[in-house]
């Protein structure tokens, strides 16, 4: 696969603050490229530079072999964006919204109508094409938001957290749709706070923090970077009296505990140093908080572990 997006030594300063610091990476044609980073890492600034929403101080960005400083008009025709915030006109129906945004790319008449219908069908909203945004659920709005970004068949699709706040069913549908777009030849840059999504769909992942690239590669390549940790996964039931902050503070103080995080499904993940060969002290501490043990597994480090190991922060 050849390189479709190339970013070289990108720098973006806001006064004295450096939001993107000499960032370089490339996205191969036809891949889903995951861009991860904690809040304020420079993800949005990078995406804005690629989409030409904001200028950059130094560096070079090329898309499909064209420089965005000189060939911006041609490059704009290649890009479709699915913004994190729902960007729709309230008083237009679903199909009118899609038609309007596709028309900005020169589509007209029957071709425009066909493209809009296809995009709506793609996100499974054909039956809802005459509904207005306020008549739609959160998941439907997210899917319509995607349809508006892809109707003109862009070669590069930038998706900024497209699944925020949607139900599981819609999320699954969106992720499947993204894979289909890839199979049709589109190159996708994808950001998300949901690590499992990134693991599931992204071919290549880049982790940035403080405007710098700190790791990139396939999921397997990245996880292999974590050689000094092992992970214990404990399924429990958290009650309403559970004091999360106190729990994390006390657990983190224990010997061998490197990171601890509590997931939404009441799973406690603890990263331990490799020297730790007795987990009794961990179970004792958890018992002090009155938490039951539903299951306990030893797990290989995942992207979450890597992310925390590299950035020192959870992704959200």
């Amino acid at each position, binding site marked *: 696969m050849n390189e479709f997006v190339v970013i070289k030594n990108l720098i973006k300063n806001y006064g004295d603050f450096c939001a993107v610091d000499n960032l370089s990476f490339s996205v191969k044609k036809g891949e889903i490229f995951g861009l991860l980073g904690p809040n304020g890492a420079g993800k949005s600034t990078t995406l804005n530079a690629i989409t*030409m929403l904001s200028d950059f101080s130094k560096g070079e960005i090329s898309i499909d072999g064209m420089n965005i400083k000189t060939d911006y008009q041609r490059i704009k025709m290649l*890009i479709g964006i699915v913004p994190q915030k729902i960007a729709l006109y309230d*008083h237009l129906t679903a199909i009118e919204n899609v038609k*309007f945004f596709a028309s*900005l790319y020169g589509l007209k008449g029957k071709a425009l109508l066909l493209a809009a219908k296809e995009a709506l069908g793609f996100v499974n909203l054909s039956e809802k094409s005459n509904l207005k945004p306020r008549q739609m659920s959160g998941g439907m709005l997210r899917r319509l938001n995607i349809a508006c970004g892809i109707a003109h068949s862009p070669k590069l699709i930038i998706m900024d957290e497209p699944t925020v706040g949607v139900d599981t069913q819609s999320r699954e549908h969106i992720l499947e749709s993204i894979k289909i777009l890839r199979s049709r030849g589109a190159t996708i840059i994808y950001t998300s706070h949901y690590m499992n999504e990134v693991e599931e769909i992204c071919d290549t992942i880049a982790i940035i923090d403080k405007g710098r690239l700190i790791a990139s590669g396939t999921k397997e390549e990245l996880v292999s970077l974590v050689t000094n940790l092992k992970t214990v996964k404990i399924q429990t039931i958290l009650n309403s009296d559970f004091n999360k902050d106190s729990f994390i503070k006390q657990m983190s103080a224990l010997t061998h505990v490197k990171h601890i995080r509590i997931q939404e499904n009441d799973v406690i993940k603890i990263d331990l140093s490799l020297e730790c060969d007795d987990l009794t002290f961990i179970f004792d501490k958890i018992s002090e908080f009155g938490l039951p043990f539903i299951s306990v597994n030893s797990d290989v480090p995942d992207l979450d572990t890597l992310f925390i190991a590299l950035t020192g922060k959870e992704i959200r």
Partner: protein
Amino acid sequence: MKDIIVNDLKEFFRDKSSLFFTIFFPIILVFILGNLLEMWNNSETIVGELNIAYYVDSNDDYKVKSIEQFLKGLEKDEAISLKKLEKLENSANQYDSIIALSGSPMEVTLYKGDDDTKNNTINAIMSSYLELNDKINYVMSKNNNQIPEITFKDEYISPKNLGTNRNMIDYYAVTMTVMIVFMTGGIAGSESFQSLRKNNTIDRLIISPKSKLSIFIGKMIGFSPMIFVQLAVVMFVSWKFLKANYAASFLGNIRLIMMLIALSYALISFSSFLGILFNFRTQAIMMPLMWVTMFFGGTFSREVYVEKITPLMPPYIVQKAAFDLINFNRFELVNKITVVSLILFVTFTLTGGYIFSKRRETA
């Protein structure tokens, strides 16, 4: 650009709040303000009968006779009654005004009553006499102290109707139309770009291959239905239901509407320009600005006139132009405002479009 214009038209006609403020709000405003203000500010002031007395205590016979003759001449008007008093005391409440001729050389003292309208009328009558007297003296000095024979008969002055029967609703029809133009023009533009930011569509527009200038101009032209519908509604309702009169001729009305349309575009482009320039809600600037200029411009009441301030207020200048046109068929000021508005529209649209094309909306 066409897509943006069509899109804005759809958004406008489907947005109930836009329709309310464009159609129903002006109707309500015209009915409520029109009726209310007309009651408070009646254009017809009835002077009524003038009961005048005069008192002579002067030996300056020539001047006394001259004034007496003049005052007696007033009695030709049935509404004026005149009585010569023997003494001044205890007469104050019986007459609207008492004219005392005293001293030598004679001096005139005008004792006024409680009614300002009657006082002003009598004051005007006496002032006109003095003016006339001055002129006669001047003519005599140039004519060997002889008064040339100039005869006027009663029918020399023939009253004629001015044409349109003007009343206060005509004043408020114009001022309310101007108010609607200033209010909506001043707010709509700034609101337009705020709403793009609010529904996050501005990023999609900027990322698209459309030039920002064409987006900006498209938004400006997209306001056309609002401008036309609003003007049509206000003018039609005030004409049809409140019997307001605008210009007497078809051409006059066309010129008036053209001026108001040009002004609307100028205001919208100005408020859009501000909306682009600042990221906060620029209505916070425009609303008070519009209200203050309209208040001091006499839009809400003809009684508000502050020297050195009112004549500078844009609403006042526009209203003056409209009154010039509809009352006197004078087009000069209307033409000037139309041309200046169009120049401002082009200037703000191009400048706003330029700033929009250079400005980065998001960090």
